[in-house]
C-alpha cells in the first residue's frame, strides 16, 4: 500500500521538484542580474571609486594632512591659499608659495571659463574657511568618465567645451539599470521557457509516443510498443500498452495464421468440388448445344428439361462454391480494394458481353441502356465484376427462360445503375435480408438469403456505393445502385 502511495505520488513529486527548480533558477537569475549590474558599475565607474582627485575630496582642516598622492600620480598639482588667496603651500604647482591670486584670476579660472583646456580645475574652502584649496589635473591624464564625474560634482571648476559631448551621469546610471533589468527579464523568460519545455516533455513525450502507437493499432498496423523505463503512472500506462500491443500482435498473427489455413483448406475443397461439377456443367452444356442443333432427335422434351435442370443447378453449385470462397476471403483481413479510375460504362459493357452467350443459350431476353459516353469512376474492377456477375447469376438461377433482364445506367450528379427483371421476384427471406441490410445487420443473413446477395452488399458497402431493393416494383425484381464520384472512404 505504502509503495503504491509512493508510486501515485510520483508525478506530483516530479512537479514539486520542477517547480522548486524553477524557484531556484529565478533566484539564481536575480543573483546573476545583480552581478551583471555590479560589473557594469565597476566597468563604468572604477576610476572614481575612492577617488581623491578634486578639491572637495582632498579637503582637510589641517592643511598639512592633505593627501595629494593621486593627483601627483596624474601629473597634477595642488595649491593652498589663505583667505586672501595667497599661496601658503604649493605642491608640484608652477606658482610658488607667496604668490597671490587676484580675485579676477580665480573668477576667470572657475566661473568665466578658461581658454586653456590643458588642465581641469577644482577648488574648495576648508570647513573653517581659513584656506582655499585649488587642484589642477592635466585633462589628458583623466579618463572621460572621471572627467565627467569631476565636471558634475566639483564646483567651482573649469568646464571646457568638450564636456557637452558626454551623456549625463544620471542617464548613464539609468541605462545601466535598464540593461540589468532587461538582462533579468531575459533570464527569467529563458528559465520559464526551458522549465516549461522540460516539464511538458516529461509528460507529453511518452503520451505522444503512446498516441502514435494507439493510432497505428487503430489503423491495423499491429506493431509492438517498447515500454518506457519510467516508474511513475505514465511508466505503468506505457507498460500496459506494451503488453497490450504484444498480445494484439500475437492474436493478429494467430488470426492471420488461421485465416491462411482456412484459405488453404477452402482452396482445396473448392478445387475438389469444382472439378467434378465442371464436368457436369461442361457435358450438359455440350449436350444442350447438340440438342439445339437437333442432332439428338430421340431425346424428348422432358429429358431436355431434366438436362437443363442438371446444367442450371450444376452452374448454381459452382457459383455457391465461388461465393463461399469469396466470403472466406472478404471476412479475412486481406481484402484491400484495388481502386482505379476507369470508364464505368465500358466496364459494364465488357462484363455483360461475357454473359450474353449464356443468356442466349438459356433463352433469356435482355435490354441494355448504357450510354456510349465516358463515365470515369473509381472502383475495383475485379470486385465490381463479381457484384455484376452475382446479380446476373441471381437472375439466371431464379427465373424461367424468356424472362427479361434490363440493365440501365445514367448519370446526373451521381451515377445510377438499375438491374431489373420481369421474373418471379425475390424470395421472402431475401427481401427480409435486404430490409435488414440497411441497418448493416448481416449476421446469419447469408444462410437465409444466399451468399450471393451477402457478397453484393459487402462489396458495394466497401466501395461506399448505395444499394437499394425497390420493394414497390411489382413485376419482378429491381435493384438500384447509386455511385458517388468521390473515392470510397477506407
Amino acid at each position, binding site marked *: 500500500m505504502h509503495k503504491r502511495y509512493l508510486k501515485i505520488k510520483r508525478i506530483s513529486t516530479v512537479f514539486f521538484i520542477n517547480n522548486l527548480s524553477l524557484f531556484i533558477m529565478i533566484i539564481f537569475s536575480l543573483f546573476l542580474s545583480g552581478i551583471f549590474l555590479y560589473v557594469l558599475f565597476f566597468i563604468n565607474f572604477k576610476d572614481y571609486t575612492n577617488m581623491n582627485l578634486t578639491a572637495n575630496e582632498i579637503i582637510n582642516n589641517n592643511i598639512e594632512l592633505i593627501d595629494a598622492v593621486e593627483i601627483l600620480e596624474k601629473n597634477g598639482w595642488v595649491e593652498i591659499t589663505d583667505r586672501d588667496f595667497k599661496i601658503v603651500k604649493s605642491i608640484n604647482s608652477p606658482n610658488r608659495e607667496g604668490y597671490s591670486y587676484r580675485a579676477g584670476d580665480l573668477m576667470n579660472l572657475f566661473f568665466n571659463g578658461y581658454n586653456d583646456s590643458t588642465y581641469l580645475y577644482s577648488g574648495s574652502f576648508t570647513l573653517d574657511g581659513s584656506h582655499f584649496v585649488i587642484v589642477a589635473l592635466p585633462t589628458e591624464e583623466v579618463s572621460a568618465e572621471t572627467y565627467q564625474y569631476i565636471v558634475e560634482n566639483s564646483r567651482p571648476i573649469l568646464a571646457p567645451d568638450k564636456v557637452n559631448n558626454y551623456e549625463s551621469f544620471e542617464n548613464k546610471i539609468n541605462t545601466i539599470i535598464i540593461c540589468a533589468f532587461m538582462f533579468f527579464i531575459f533570464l527569467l523568460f529563458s528559465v520559464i521557457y526551458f522549465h516549461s519545455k522540460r516539464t511538458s516533455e516529461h509528460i507529453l513525450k511518452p503520451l505522444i509516443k503512446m498516441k502514435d502507437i494507439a493510432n497505428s493499432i487503430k489503423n491495423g498496423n499491429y506493431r509492438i510498443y517498447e515500454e518506457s523505463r519510467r516508474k511513475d503512472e505514465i511508466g505503468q500506462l506505457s507498460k500496459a500498452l506494451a503488453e497490450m500491443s504484444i498480445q494484439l500482435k500475437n492474436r493478429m498473427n494467430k488470426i492471420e495464421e488461421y485465416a491462411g489455413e482456412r*484459405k488453404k483448406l477452402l*482452396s482445396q475443397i*473448392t*478445387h475438389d468440388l*469444382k*472439378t*467434378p*461439377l*465442371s*464436368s457436369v*456443367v*461442361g*457435358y450438359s*452444356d*455440350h449436350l444442350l448445344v447438340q440438342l439445339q442443333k437437333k442432332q439428338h432427335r430421340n431425346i424428348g422434351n422432358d429429358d431436355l428439361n431434366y438436362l437443363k435442370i442438371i446444367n442450371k443447378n450444376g*452452374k448454381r453449385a*459452382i457459383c455457391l462454391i465461388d461465393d463461399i*470462397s469469396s466470403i472466406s476471403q472478404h471476412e479475412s483481413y486481406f481484402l484491400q480494394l484495388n481502386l482505379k479510375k476507369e470508364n464505368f460504362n*465500358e466496364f459494364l*459493357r*465488357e462484363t*455483360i*458481353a*461475357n454473359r*450474353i*452467350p*449464356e443468356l*442466349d443459350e438459356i433463352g433469356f431476353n435482355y*435490354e*441494355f*441502356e*448504357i450510354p*456510349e459516353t*465516358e463515365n470515369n469512376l473509381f472502383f475495383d474492377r475485379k470486385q465490381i465484376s463479381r457484384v455484376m456477375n452475382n446479380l446476373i447469376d441471381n437472375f439466371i438461377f431464379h427465373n424461367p427462360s424468356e424472362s427479361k433482364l434490363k*440493365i440501365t445506367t445514367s448519370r446526373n450528379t451521381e451515377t445510377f445503375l438499375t438491374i431489373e427483371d420481369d421474373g418471379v421476384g425475390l424470395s421472402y427471406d431475401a427481401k427480409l435480408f435486404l430490409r435488414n441490410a440497411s441497418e448493416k445487420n448481416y449476421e446469419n443473413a447469408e444462410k437465409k438469403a444466399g451468399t450471393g446477395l451477402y457478397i453484393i452488399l459487402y462489396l458495394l458497402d466497401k466501395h461506399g456505393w448505395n444499394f437499394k431493393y425497390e420493394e414497390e416494383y411489382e413485376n419482378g425484381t429491381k435493384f438500384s445502385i447509386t455511385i458517388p464520384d468521390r473515392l470510397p472512404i477506407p
Partner: protein
Amino acid sequence: MRILVVEDDQDMAQLIRLHLENENYEVFVTTNGINAWELFKNNSFDFIILDIIIPGFDGYSLIRKIRNTSMVPVIFLTSKGENSDIILGLGMGADDYIVKPFNPLEMIARIKAQYRRCKTKDDEFEKAVIEIAGIKICPKEFSLTVSGEEKKLNLREFGILRFLMENAGMVFTKKQIYETVWNEEYIDNGNTIMVHISRIREKIESDPRNPRNLVTIKGIGYKFARR
C-alpha cells in the same frame, strides 16, 4: 493444330477433347505429368493445355521442364483460381490461365488468340478457312465468299469480320473490336465501328436491315452468331 491436354480427371479431359475436336484440332490427352513429359519429348505439339494438380510432375514442374526446351504456347486450365495461383502460373511461363469451370467458347478463343500471337503469316493458322452459315473467309487469300459468291472487303472490314467469326457466339464491345483490329487505343470511335459493321452487313447479310449473322447487341456491342 496438335494440342496436348494434361488433365488428371478423365471426365474433364474428355470434355476438353470434345470441345477441341469440334474445332477440328488434333488432340492428345494424358492424365499425369510423367507421361506428358514423355509425350512432349517424343512428339511435336502446337499447343499445350495443362492442369496444375496432376500426378507425377505437377503442372508447375512440367511447365518449367517444357520452357527449358520450347516456347510452345501453354495455357493452365485449373480449379485453382486464387490471385496468387494465377500470378505463380503466369510467372512460371504459362501464356494464359483459365479457371474451371471454363466457358468452352472462351477456352477456344484464348487458344486461338495465343496461337495467333506466336505464329507468322505463313503458318497453318493463317491458311485455315473459317466458314459459318455459308460465309467463308480465307485469311491467307484475304477473300470472302458468301454462298459461293466472292465479295470484296477492305482491310479493316476483313479484320473485324475475321475477329468476330473466329470468336463466333461471343459478344464484343466497340472498344474491344477497335483495339483488336486497329491495334490502337480506342478514343470514342463508336461511329467508325458502326460504319464498318454496316458495310460488312451489306456484303454478308441477305437483309442488312435485319441481320442474322453479324448481330448488334444494343447497348453492348456486336457478335457473329453461331450456328
